[in-house]
Every structure is written in C-alpha cells, then in structure tokens.
C-alpha cells in the first residue's frame, strides 16, 4: 500500500525536506533572494529534530560554520545565490582540500553582480566548476522539478559523505520558487550514505590515509578522541602541513581522482526520444522543462528531436554524450546564460557534432517556442 505523504510544495522547501531526510542536522547561512526560504525552513525544522540552525553574519561565515559543523560530526548544509556563492568560494576550496563533506545550494539568479535578484538564471554553472582558486574536485547536481529537488538533495548529501567533498546543488529561481505536487518517499525508501568512520582510535590513526580498497580516508569527528589536525595547507597523511612537492602533487591528484575515477557512480541523466533523433536538446534545470515541451511539440510536427536531461552537471556526462554523437550530429543547448554549458559540450564532442547554443540572460525563462524556432533554424 502506498502511504506516502502527498503535498503541494515549493522547490526550496523540498530541498530542506530532502536534506532532513538525508540526515542534515546543521545549517549555517545568510539570507539572500531567491534562496532565503531554505534558511527559513531550516530554522523552523532543524530544532524539531534536535538539529542546529544558525544565521551567520555574512556568506563567508555561513560557509565556514557549515564546514565547522561537519567537522564536529553533523551533516551540514548552507544555501545561497550568485553573490553569496561568489563570497563562499574561498571556503569551498578549503572544504575541497580538507575533504569535509557538506552541501552548498545555489539558487541561481541573474547576474553578474546584484543583477536581477528575483529573476532566474543558470549563470553560475561555470562558477560551480571553477569558482574557487586552484584545481579542485567538483560535483554539481541540478534538478528540474520539485520532486527532483528532494531526490537530488538526498543524493547531494550521499555523494558528499561518500566522496568527502562539498557538493553543489544548483537550483534556479524557477525550480526554487515553483510549487508542485510531490509524493514524499517513506524513510525506508530513501537510501542514505553516512561518512565512513575510522575503526580504531590509537597511534596508528592517520587522518588523511586512504585504507586499502577505500575511496577516501575514514573521517573522525572532533571530540571523539582522535587528536587530528586539519589544514588548508597542502598536507601529508597525518594532516600536517608540508612544502614537499611530492606530497602536494600526490594529495591534489588523489582528491581529483576520487571524482574522475568514479564518474559513472556520480553522473545522473535521463533521455527521451533518442533512438532516431537527428538533433539532441541537452538541457538542465528549469530550462529542461521548456526543452521537454519543445521536444514533444517537435516530435508531433515530425521533427526527429531527442532530449537529454543532465541531472549531474559536474562531472560532465562525457561518456554518454560522446556515445550519442555516433548517431546524432547536432546538439542544441538552451540555457539561461550565454553558452557556458554549450562550450563544455563543444569541448567534449569536438568535431563529432555541431553544437548550437541558445542563451538568454534578460531574466526571463526560455520558452518552448523559442527552442522550437531554434530547432527549425538549425535542422
């Protein structure tokens, strides 16, 4: 019998529900449109489950406290939008290098700068990949609906715990603010991954040593008896700073490879109308919704249009997209920026397919009609 709760829910609220279901017990953030409801729901809900919410003095502090909460043992999250995402970048790099799991939600609004605070955008896609300085591992997910927001928030926590890295949940103003019907899965239907803890607390413990057969070092929490050191400097297996070029190289390559070696586990996508497609619409986030409508209309009009929904934005679903170019020679990428993801698609498919960008940055969403028109133009 299906006894799942059915609700009409906003995307930002579904994010909080997903986070709580995944085990989030700590949130630190700063108010910013259009992500503020996430903070408000966390403030309301967390103490009810024994968790902690704190409104920090600024975005930077929100990120810092989130990392602190995770080091103290609680699954932690923060949420923001473009300007705040910019401010958080230094500490995001810190979490990447120190391998502290946490989830960072960016409800994208039109930028740069203050831009159009209440208007949707997908302009932070490249910032998610390259926002902090230095090479660093990146996982970013982008839901297209309220239900997917719930599911991908759970997934974001699981991936951050499994790979010990910050995970970005890239919402946009449309997905964050729209209300849809959502059937909430029962707790026993939700797969949860908790960080792997060290087994023995003795002299042999090294905070940053990866045990045989493991992807990441086991993670102790402060206060459990492991007197370990965490630093944003390059560090050895013990966690202590080192200027040794060999140690630095080994560390950075290791944290990069935990993602690059496990792309298949991280990459999520969905496809429709692929079989005989002559052109593929590759879309994500709110724009996918218009893309799907356009694809259906195009099919009804006899155009051979396929549809690819990228749920994992980073790492890029490289293998599958390359595979698709064996038969599909044209790819259209509609997005609320001036071709950030289209450029990545171009980089990946090289000369195997023509890539067409349909970008929009005036604060309005891309309509199915606009996508249809572009399809007719390039087919």
């Amino acid at each position, binding site marked *: 019998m299906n006894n799942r709760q059915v609700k009409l829910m906003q995307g930002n609220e579904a994010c909080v529900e997903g986070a709580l279901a995944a085990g989030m017990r700590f949130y630190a953030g700063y108010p910013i449109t259009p992500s503020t409801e996430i903070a408000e729901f966390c403030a309301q809900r967390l103490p009810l489950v024994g968790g902690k919410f704190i409104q920090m*003095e600024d975005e*930077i502090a929100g990120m810092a406290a989130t990392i602190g909460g995770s080091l*103290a043992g609680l699954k932690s999250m923060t949420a923001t939008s473009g300007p705040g995402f910019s401010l958080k970048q230094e500490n995001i790099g810190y979490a990447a290098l120190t391998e502290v799991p946490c989830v960072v939600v960016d409800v994208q609004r039109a930028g740069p700068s203050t831009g159009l605070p209440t208007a949707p955008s997908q302009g932070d896609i490249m910032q998610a990949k390259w926002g902090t300085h230095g090479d660093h591992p990146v996982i970013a997910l982008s839901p297209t609906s309220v239900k997917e927001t719930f599911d991908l928030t759970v997934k974001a926590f699981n991936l951050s715990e499994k790979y010990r890295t910050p995970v970005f949940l890239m919402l946009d103003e449309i997905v964050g603010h729209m209300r849809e019907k959502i059937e909430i899965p029962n707790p026993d239907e939700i797969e949860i991954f908790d960080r792997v803890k060290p087994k023995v607390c003795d002299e042999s413990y090294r905070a940053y040593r990866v045990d045989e057969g493991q992807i990441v070092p086991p993670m102790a929490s402060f206060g459990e008896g*492991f*007197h370990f050191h965490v630093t944003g400097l390059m560090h050895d297996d013990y966690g202590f700073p080192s200027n040794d070029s060999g140690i630095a190289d080994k560390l950075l390559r290791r944290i990069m490879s935990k993602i690059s070696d496990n792309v298949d586990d991280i990459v999520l996508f969905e496809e429709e109308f692929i079989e005989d497609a002559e052109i593929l619409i590759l879309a994500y986030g709110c724009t996918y919704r218009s893309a799907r409508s356009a694809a259906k209309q195009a099919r009804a009009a006899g155009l051979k249009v396929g549809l690819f929904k990228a749920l994992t934005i980073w790492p890029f679903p490289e293998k599958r997209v390359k595979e698709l170019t064996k038969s599909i020679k044209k790819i259209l990428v509609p997005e609320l920026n001036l071709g950030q993801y289209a450029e990545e698609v171009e980089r990946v498919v090289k000369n195997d397919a023509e890539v067409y960008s349909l970008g929009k940055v005036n604060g309005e969403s891309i309509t199915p009609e606009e996508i249809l028109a572009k399809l007719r133009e390039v087919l």
Partner: protein
Amino acid sequence: MSSQLIKNNFREDRLPHIWCPGCGHGIIMRSLAQAVENLNLEKQKVCVISGIGCSSRTPGYLDFNTLHTTHGRALAFATGVKLANPELKVIVVTGDGDCTAIGGNHLIHTARRNIDITAIVFNNNIYGMTGGQYSPTTPTNEFGTTAPFGNIDKAFDICKLADAAGATYTARGTAYHVNQLTKIIENAISNKGFSLVDAISICPTYYGRKNKKGAAVNMMNYLKDFAVDAKVVDKLPPEKLENKFIIGEFKNTTEPEYTEEYMKIIKKYQKER
C-alpha cells in the same frame, strides 16, 4: 629533554615551531597549554582553531583537536564546531590582522552572540607572515612596509571592541607577564560565554626592525616597563600613565550563552530523538 607540559600537550614531532628567533608567540602558546593543563581539561574535548598568519600555526603544534582554517574566518568555523558539539572547549588562536581586519566582522558577531568560545589574539602590531605590513593595531605614526611614511590609521583597542560588541570576558596580557597571562587564559576558558584575550606579543623581525624597537630583549623590556596593571590604574596620576598600556582583566560577567539558549529551544520543541 622536554618538560612534562610539552609531553602532555604538544605534538613533539612537529617541533621546533616556525616562528622567528625572539618572537613572543611561543610564550603565549606555552601559556595556553599551561592554562589547559591547570584547568585539567579533557584533551579530547579541547578544540583549537586558527585562521592564517604567524599565530595561526599554533594548532599544528598542540595535541588536541586542531583546525587551521582560512584568513580571518577562525571564529566563524569555531562557531560551527561549537554549535554542532557544545561539549567541546573551543579556543581560537588568531592574530591582530586575522582577528580585527579581515576577520573583524566575525569578531564582533561572535562576541555579540556570547557563544562559549575563547579567542586569544597574538597581537604583535604587524602582519608578520607577509613581511611587516601595518595592521589594525599598529600605532599611529609607526612604520610598516606598507606605511613607509608612517601609519595614519588609528589603532584598535581590541578589548574595548570586544566589550562593546558583547563579549562577557575581556583581558589583556603580555608575553612578558607570563604567569598573569596563563591565569587570564584560564579565566577566559572558564567563562561560559565569549572571551577575548588580547595577548601582546613581540615581533622583533618586522615590527621591531621597522620601528627601531631594538632586539627581542629590548622589546620584552618595553612590555615590562610600559604595562600598567588594571588594578592600579585608578591610583596612578595621569603623568604616570602617559604612553603606558593597561593589562589585566577588564570584564568578567555572566550572560546567557548562545549554545545553551539554542539547546533550550531544542528541548522545548524537539519532537523526535
């Protein structure tokens, strides 16, 4: 042979420290370890957190839960750690630039919340790690590599700043008055709320050299000769206070503490356990 204090509280294999000859930071670090020992704190519950700069290398040498964070942000990281696990004794080690310039916003808000964190500012009046630039505690008219014609900024009184922002314990000690500094740090840690210790250090390498303060011994003598204890300030005539700075406890009060207040909310509204 290392002392019992070192054996008990330091990561001996991480020593010697990186600080310059004559730097006062090692003395303050020792005072901190002595205070932890005197208070009999459970080592696994002690968490020492720092930002970036000379002072911020301290946690690496101490055998506790230690966290070396980003420039200026130690108090924000510490707030997350403390709120997530209020059982931890959270001590932040920071510098004058780290705490009051780039981290100034976090300082005033951590003080305002009165969260149970002790911040010890290793105050050497200069940015040492980057090579001698003027900081918010470099006195007016003194020199730094970025103040080649004299500093026109006014200096912060960090204790007054923290006091005004809501800290419930403020005190100033020096690397010369070691026993007093240890006692101050003990009292700061014992205070259930936000405590600020302005620990005056010396930097012969940059601040001293740029301002012709002499060698480390001369700078230590300055701390000895120009510090006036808060207890006797009122009894001294104004001329005896000229160019002097005041050390000792300025504030020691009790007010509602942040994590305790939050736990009250949880206790009242929590539905599941």
